[in-house]
């Protein structure tokens, strides 16, 4: 029987005790203290800001990505979590530890450049916003079908993380602007 889908409501500010568990922001291991996933360990951090440029605290940032070889879920590395959660602090900042994802297939014969799917839930967001974090200095970015479909270069550039160091682990900054100048490109799924 056909059913109409359930609508979204805001996550509100009080979700922490229900949604966050130890090491949820560390995708490099499936279980705390377990073996580490294959691949280059990286850190992604960023700040979530609103239309006034003010930091947005208590925003749930949810990540889903392929493993280092470009495989999702059980088709991939058994030690890689693939899915992770972080919450922004009072400065609107979040941080995730993960491995550099491999390229994954796109439509037809195309390939998608390495990327992480991010969904954000927060007070004042009646439904999530969804975006993707890509990485700088990836030759594949120019061929990526999702990036290529965005004609406005200033909008497209909001999806490319910035490199923060050349050390080990490499660190990247991916800020998310919910509204106004520099507004992040969000997707309609």
């Amino acid at each position: 029987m056909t059913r109409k889908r359930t609508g979204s409501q805001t996550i509100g500010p009080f979700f922490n005790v229900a949604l966050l568990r130890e090491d949820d922001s560390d995708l490099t291991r499936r279980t705390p203290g377990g073996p580490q996933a294959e691949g280059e360990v990286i850190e992604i951090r960023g700040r979530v800001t609103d239309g006034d440029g003010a930091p947005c605290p208590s925003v749930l940032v949810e990540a889903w990505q392929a493993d280092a070889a470009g495989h999702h879920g059980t088709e991939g590395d058994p030690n890689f979590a693939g899915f992770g959660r972080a919450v922004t602090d009072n400065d609107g900042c979040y941080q995730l530890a993960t491995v550099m994802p491999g390229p994954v297939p796109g439509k037809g014969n195309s390939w998608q450049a390495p990327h992480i799917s991010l969904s954000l839930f927060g007070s004042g967001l009646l439904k999530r916003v969804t975006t993707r974090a890509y990485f700088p200095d990836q030759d594949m970015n120019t061929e990526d079908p999702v990036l290529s479909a965005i004609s406005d270069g200033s909008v497209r550039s909001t999806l490319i993380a910035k490199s923060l160091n050349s050390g080990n682990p490499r660190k990247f900054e991916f800020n998310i602007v919910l509204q106004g100048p520099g507004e992040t490109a969000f997707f309609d799924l």
Partner: protein
Amino acid sequence: MANHDTGERYFPADDETADPPYLHADYGSTVKKSPARPPIPLEHTITELTGPVFEAGQAGENDLTQQGGSLPIGERIDVRGRVLDEDGNPYAGALVEMWQANAAGKYRHLNDGRDAPLDPNFIGAGRCVTDADGAYSFKTIRPGAYPVPDSEWWRPAHLHFSVTGPSVVARLITQMYFPGDPLLGADAIYKSIADQEARERLIARFAPELGERGRSLGYEFDIVLRGRARD
């Protein structure tokens, strides 16, 4: 966690009447957080069509009445339902997380500064993983309503639900309301969904037969995620 077979379902254009808009001025905090640019259509790829699937949770994690040394204060309720796709097929292996205020309308959270009491026997968070029929259940107490800070309106009694898996597309966070609550008519969050029928799908059905006789009242709340069965 396991990868889901992406061949099992497809995701036609979304029924956008189900959701609220980003900007709903009556809910003031949307004003500066609503994106100004329309979201960019994204043809689903393997990234969006996959997601985490969870192994069965630990027994008792769905019983919010057993989190302290004795029973929490409040009217005991059982909430049961199924997580389904838009063809009414079960979503098995989905993680259902639920959280709520206590009977006094107070959350166990540092930022809930209202002068209402915490209940030492109530944490207000539970989880379970849907079975092969897509079924979930929680034992809890009916939460209290509470006033929204610096506003004229009160939040009606509600349970927060988060459903994760098996695809990024189907991910949902929502709230369940109680039938006949007079506060629904003035709740800017509930009323943010313009379509009345869509809004009313967030109201549980009073189902005393789902409770334990002489012990708890029952409510039924099905959660329908995006996705249709492939032929």
